[in-house]
C-alpha cells in the first residue's frame, strides 16, 4: 500500500496538468468566435498579393507580340493582327509564341520586351502538332529566359494564373482560374478555366508559386469549322505542358518543324471509347507495318502507359511526334510482344476499295450470348462481288479479321490496298467457304447500278411522295423535304441534303419542281435547306444542317450510311457557288454523318482544316466530270488526305440520287 503523501502528490500533478490544459483551451476558445466571422476581404487581398508575386516571377520573361501589315480578314471575331503574348526561352533571343501570329503572312513581327522596346522577330520553326511557333530576335539587351523545368505538381483544382502583356505599353495582364483537366485535345493540352482572351495567347500558365505549368494556345475541340479563337473568355482555355515544350525546343531551335506522328493502326471498334484495343488492319507502308504490327494484335501499352481503348492510344501518342520512336507492347495469340515503332509524318493516303455488296447486321442469340452477323442483303451488278457473293451469305472474316458488324467490314475495305485480292470467309447455307475477291477502287468513274431488287420495287406504281416543310425551333433557315408517307414500306433509302444558293427560290418550290418525282423513283429522300442570310452561308450554320439531317432521318427508313450533302452545282452544267463551298465545309467537318458530298468542279474550297481520313469515315467526293485530267487543283489535297473522288460524268438528278442511295454499299 502506498504512503498517503505520495498519493496526494500524484493527484496534484494530474490535476495540475488537466487544469492547465483546460485553461489554455479556455483562452483559445473565444478567439474562434470572431475568427469564424471570417474576413473574406482580407483573403481576397492576400490572394491578390500572392497572384502578383507569382506573376512577377515570370513577367521578366513574358513579351508582347505585335503583327504589322497583314491582310485584314478577321479570324472569326479576333483580328488577324491581334496583339498576343510570348515567352523568352533562352538568352540567345528565342521567343516561343502561339502559331496564331503566323496564321497569315505579315510584313513584320515585333516582340515588345518587358522594358517596352520593340525588336523585329523572324520565324525559326513551327510545332504543327501543338500550334506553337519559335521566333528569334537579335537583342543586345540581357534577356531573362523562362524556366520550364521548375518542378510542379499538377492537381486538378489547383490555382492557375494566365499571364501575358497587354496594350501599347505591354502592361502585365493576368487571369486567375483553376486547372480543369489534363491530356485534353488528344493528349496535348492542359485545360484551365481562367479567362483567356486573345492578348493572353502565347503567355505562360503558372501556379500560385510562379512555376510554369504550360503555354496558352487558342484551341477548340474537333468537329467544327469554327476558328481556334472561338472559345476565348469562355471558361475553357488550353495550355501546352512545359515538360513537353522542353522536349521539343532543341528540334525547333535547329529550324526543324515538329509534326504530329502517325502510326497507321486501323481500329476494330468504330467507337474509340469502346473497350478494346484490337487492331483490325494495319495501313500499308506505315510505321506500324514496318515495325511488325499485325491485324488481330491487342495493344497493351504505349511507351509504358497501359491503354484500354483506342482513344487512350491517341491520347498517349499526344506527347510524341513524327520521327520519334516509341515502345509498344502488344498481345498476339496469348503472347506479349514488344515492338519499337518510329512515328511518321505521313502515311500513303487511303485508297478506299469496294466489293459491291449491301449488308445488314443481324443479331443472333445462342443461349445466353448475343452476337452480330453481317449478312449480304444485295449484290450490285457489275462489281467484284457480282459473281462471287449472293444475297443471304453470312460474312465471317475478311482480310483475316473477324467481322463484328457492317462498320468493321467497311473499315477493312477502306483500308485495303487497291487491286489486291482479299480473303473473304463466308457461310452459305450450312457450308463455310473461303473466297478470294479483288475489290475495285471507289475513286474513279461512276459505274454502279442499283441491285435488281431495288429496280423491281421502283418499277411498280411509283408511290407519290410528299413534300413537307421542315422547321427547327432554334434555326431560322427555311427547309423542306420530300419523303414517302408514313404507310410506305420503302426502306434502305438514301438521303441527299441539298444546300441551296443564297437568293435561290424557296426549298419547297425547288423540290416540287425538280426533285420530287426522281426522289420517289430512285428511293432517295431529298431535303433542301436555304441559308439564313439571303446573301451567304455562314460557318455557324453547319450545326443547323447537321440538326436538320438528324430530323429528316427520323422521318423515313433512311440508311445511315447513305447520307450525302450536295448542291445543284453537282449536276452537269452547274457552277461552283456559295452552296458548294458550304457543302464541302459541312462534309469535311462532319464526316461521321455524311458519307458523300457532291459539288461542282468549280467550287471554291472552304478554309477548313482537312483532316486525314483515318479509316474512320467513308466520305467520298462526287464531281460531275468525265476524265481524270479534268480534276480541279483543289482535289489534290482531298485525294492526298485519303478521300476518294468519284467522277459522275454528265450527272443528272437521277444519277445523283442513285449515287447517294448507293453510298451504303461496301
Amino acid at each position, binding site marked *: 500500500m502506498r504512503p498517503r503523501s505520495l498519493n496526494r502528490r500524484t493527484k496534484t500533478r494530474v490535476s495540475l496538468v488537466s487544469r492547465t490544459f483546460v*485553461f489554455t483551451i*479556455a483562452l483559445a476558445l473565444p*478567439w474562434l468566435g470572431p475568427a469564424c466571422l471570417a474576413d*473574406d476581404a482580407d483573403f*481576397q487581398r492576400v490572394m491578390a498579393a500572392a497572384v502578383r508575386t507569382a506573376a512577377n516571377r515570370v513577367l521578366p520573361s513574358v513579351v508582347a507580340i505585335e503583327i504589322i501589315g497583314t491582310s485584314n480578314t478577321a479570324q472569326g471575331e479576333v483580328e488577324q493582327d491581334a496583339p498576343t503574348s510570348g515567352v523568352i526561352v533562352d538568352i540567345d533571343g528565342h521567343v516561343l509564341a502561339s502559331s496564331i501570329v503566323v496564321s497569315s503572312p505579315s*510584313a513584320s513581327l515585333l516582340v515588345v520586351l518587358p522594358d517596352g522596346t520593340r525588336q*523585329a522577330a523572324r520565324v525559326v520553326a513551327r510545332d504543327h502538332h501543338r500550334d506553337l511557333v519559335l521566333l528569334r530576335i537579335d537583342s543586345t539587351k540581357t534577356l531573362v529566359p523562362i524556366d520550364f523545368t521548375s518542378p510542379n505538381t499538377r492537381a486538378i483544382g489547383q490555382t492557375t494564373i494566365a499571364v501575358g502583356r497587354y496594350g501599347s505599353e505591354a502592361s502585365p*495582364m493576368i487571369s486567375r482560374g483553376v486547372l480543369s483537366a489534363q491530356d485534353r485535345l488528344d493528349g496535348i493540352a492542359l485545360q484551365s478555366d*481562367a479567362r483567356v482572351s486573345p492578348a493572353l495567347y502565347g503567355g505562360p500558365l503558372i501556379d500560385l508559386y510562379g512555376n510554369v505549368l504550360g503555354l496558352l494556345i487558342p484551341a477548340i475541340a474537333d468537329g467544327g469549322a469554327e476558328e481556334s479563337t472561338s472559345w476565348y473568355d469562355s471558361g475553357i482555355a488550353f495550355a501546352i505542358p512545359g515538360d513537353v515544350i522542353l522536349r521539343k525546343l532543341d528540334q525547333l531551335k535547329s529550324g526543324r518543324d515538329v509534326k504530329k506522328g502517325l502510326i497507321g493502326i486501323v481500329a476494330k471498334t468504330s467507337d474509340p471509347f469502346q473497350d478494346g484495343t484490337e487492331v483490325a488492319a494495319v495501313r500499308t507502308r506505315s510505321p506500324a507495318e514496318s515495325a511488325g504490327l499485325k491485324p488481330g494484335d491487342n495493344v497493351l501499352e504505349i511507351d509504358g502507359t497501359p491503354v484500354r481503348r483506342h482513344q487512350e492510344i491517341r491520347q498517349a501518342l499526344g506527347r510524341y511526334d513524327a520521327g520519334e520512336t516509341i515502345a509498344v507492347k502488344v498481345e498476339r495469340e496469348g503472347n506479349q510482344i514488344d515492338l519499337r515503332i518510329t512515328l511518321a509524318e505521313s502515311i500513303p493516303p487511303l485508297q478506299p476499295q469496294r466489293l459491291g455488296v449491301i449488308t445488314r447486321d443481324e443479331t443472333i442469340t445462342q443461349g445466353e450470348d448475343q452476337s452480330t452477323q453481317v449478312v449480304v442483303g444485295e449484290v450490285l451488278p457489275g462489281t467484284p462481288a457480282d459473281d462471287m457473293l449472293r444475297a443471304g451469305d453470312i460474312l465471317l472474316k475478311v482480310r483475316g479479321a473477324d467481322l463484328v458488324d457492317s462498320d468493321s467490314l467497311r473499315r477493312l475495305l477502306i483500308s485495303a490496298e487497291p487491286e489486291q485480292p482479299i480473303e473473304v470467309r463466308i457461310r452459305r447455307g450450312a457450308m463455310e467457304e473461303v473466297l478470294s475477291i479483288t475489290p475495285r477502287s471507289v475513286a474513279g468513274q461512276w459505274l454502279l447500278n442499283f441491285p435488281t431488287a431495288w429496280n423491281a420495287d421502283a418499277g411498280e406504281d411509283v408511290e407519290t411522295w410528299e413534300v413537307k416543310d421542315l422547321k427547327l425551333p432554334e434555326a431560322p433557315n427555311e427547309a423542306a423535304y420530300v419523303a414517302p408517307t408514313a404507310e410506305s414500306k420503302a426502306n434502305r433509302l438514301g438521303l441527299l441534303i441539298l444546300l441551296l444558293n443564297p437568293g435561290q427560290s424557296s426549298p419547297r418550290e425547288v423540290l416540287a419542281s425538280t426533285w420530287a418525282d426522281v426522289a420517289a423513283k430512285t428511293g432517295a429522300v431529298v431535303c433542301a435547306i436555304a441559308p439564313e442570310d439571303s446573301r451567304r452561308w455562314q460557318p455557324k450554320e453547319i450545326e443547323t444542317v447537321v440538326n436538320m439531317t438528324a430530323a429528316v432521318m427520323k422521318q423515313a427508313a433512311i440508311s445511315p450510311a447513305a447520307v450525302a450533302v450536295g448542291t445543284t452545282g453537282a449536276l452537269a452544267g452547274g457552277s461552283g457557288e456559295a452552296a458548294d463551298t458550304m457543302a464541302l465545309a459541312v462534309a469535311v467537318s462532319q464526316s461521321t454523318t455524311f458519307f458523300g458530298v457532291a459539288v461542282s468542279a468549280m467550287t471554291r474550297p472552304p478554309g477548313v482544316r482537312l483532316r486525314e481520313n483515318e479509316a474512320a469515315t467513308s466520305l467520298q467526293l462526287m464531281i460531275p466530270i468525265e476524265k481524270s485530267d479534268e480534276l480541279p487543283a483543289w482535289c489534290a489535297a482531298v485525294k492526298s488526305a485519303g478521300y476518294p473522288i468519284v467522277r459522275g460524268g454528265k450527272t443528272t438528278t437521277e444519277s445523283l440520287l442513285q449515287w447517294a442511295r448507293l453510298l451504303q454499299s461496301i
Partner: protein
Amino acid sequence: MRGSRFISVTWLIALFQFVALSGMTVLSQLNAFAQPPLTSWARTAQQRVVKVYGAGGLTGLEAYQSGFLVSPEGHVATAWSYVLDVEPIVLLDDGRRFEAKIVGFEPALELAVLKIEASELPYFPIHEELEPQWGDPILAVSNLFNIATGDEPASVMQGTIATISNLSARRGTFKTPYHGAVLVLDLIANNPGAAGGAVVDSSGRLIGMLGKELRDTATGAWLNYAIPAGVLRKTIGDIIAGRSTTLIDDSTPMLDRDKSHNLAALGLVLIPDVLEITPAYVDEVLEGTPAARANLQPDDLILLVNGKRVESQRSLRSLLRTVDRRDDVEFAIQRESQILPMVLRP
C-alpha cells in the same frame, strides 16, 4: 488554486475575451472606414447602385443599364448611352422609383450624371488617392440582364483587375471617344445592362464605372473593362457643383492640311497603296528633305510615329495630320531585322 475557483476564473477570462473580441468586431462594422467582412461591403455597395431604365434604341437594344449614387441628394453617375435618349427612370435598391433629369454629361468620358429628387441617400464618395493595381480583388455591382427589378438589389460579381492599360486605337476610328486608361477586368462583366455599374475595391471604395459592351479594337474580342473613378472624379464633382466642366483634351486632333506634316513635305514616297492595309514601306527618299537628312532609305518599314503604331499607309497619313508642321516627328523604322529610331526635323 482550489478546483472550483479555478474553473470559475477560467470561465470568467474566457467570457471576458469573448465579449471584448465581439465588441471589437461590432465596433469595426460600425466604422465605415475600417475593413468589414465581404458580406457587408457587398451589401453596402448594392445599396448605392441603382437601376436605370430608358430608351431601347433603334434596333430594339436593351432599354436598361446601371448607375450609382454619388451624392446624398440623389446625383447618379451612369454611362452615357442611347438608354438616356429619353428622360430615364431610376429605381433605387429599396425599390423607390424616381424620374431623373440629365444634369450633365461628358461623352469623352462615356459619363452622364442624372439627378433624382431625394435626400439622405447612401452614396459613393470618390476618393482621390486610390491607385488600383493589376491583380487587386474587386466587386462589380450592376443590373446585368435586368435580372433585378423593383426593389430587388443589383447583382454582385467578384473578380480581379487583369491589367490597367490605355484603350488602344485602331486606324483612327475610335469605337468609343474615351481612349485613356481603363481597368481591364478578369471577370465577364461585359453584359447587357451592366454599363454604368459600380466597381469597388476590397474595402468597399468606388474605383471604377463598368463600361459599355465594346470590342477591343486591337484584338477584336469583347472587352471587360471599367473607367477608373479617378478619371471621372473631377467631372462628376464639377457637374454636382454646377460648374461648367472643362475637360483637358489630350486627344490629338487633325490639323488643317497646310498646318500639318505630310509625306511629300517630309520627302517620302511609299510603295503603291493598293491593298486594304498596305504596310508603310518606303519606296523612295527625295533629296534635300527631312527624310533624307534623317537617313531614311528605300525598303525601310515605318513602324511608329511619335510612339503610335502605324498599321497601314492610311493610318500613317492620319497620324501625320495630327503633327504640327513646325514640330519634329519621331519615327521608328525597321531596316532588315533592326529597329531604328529616327527624328525628322523640318
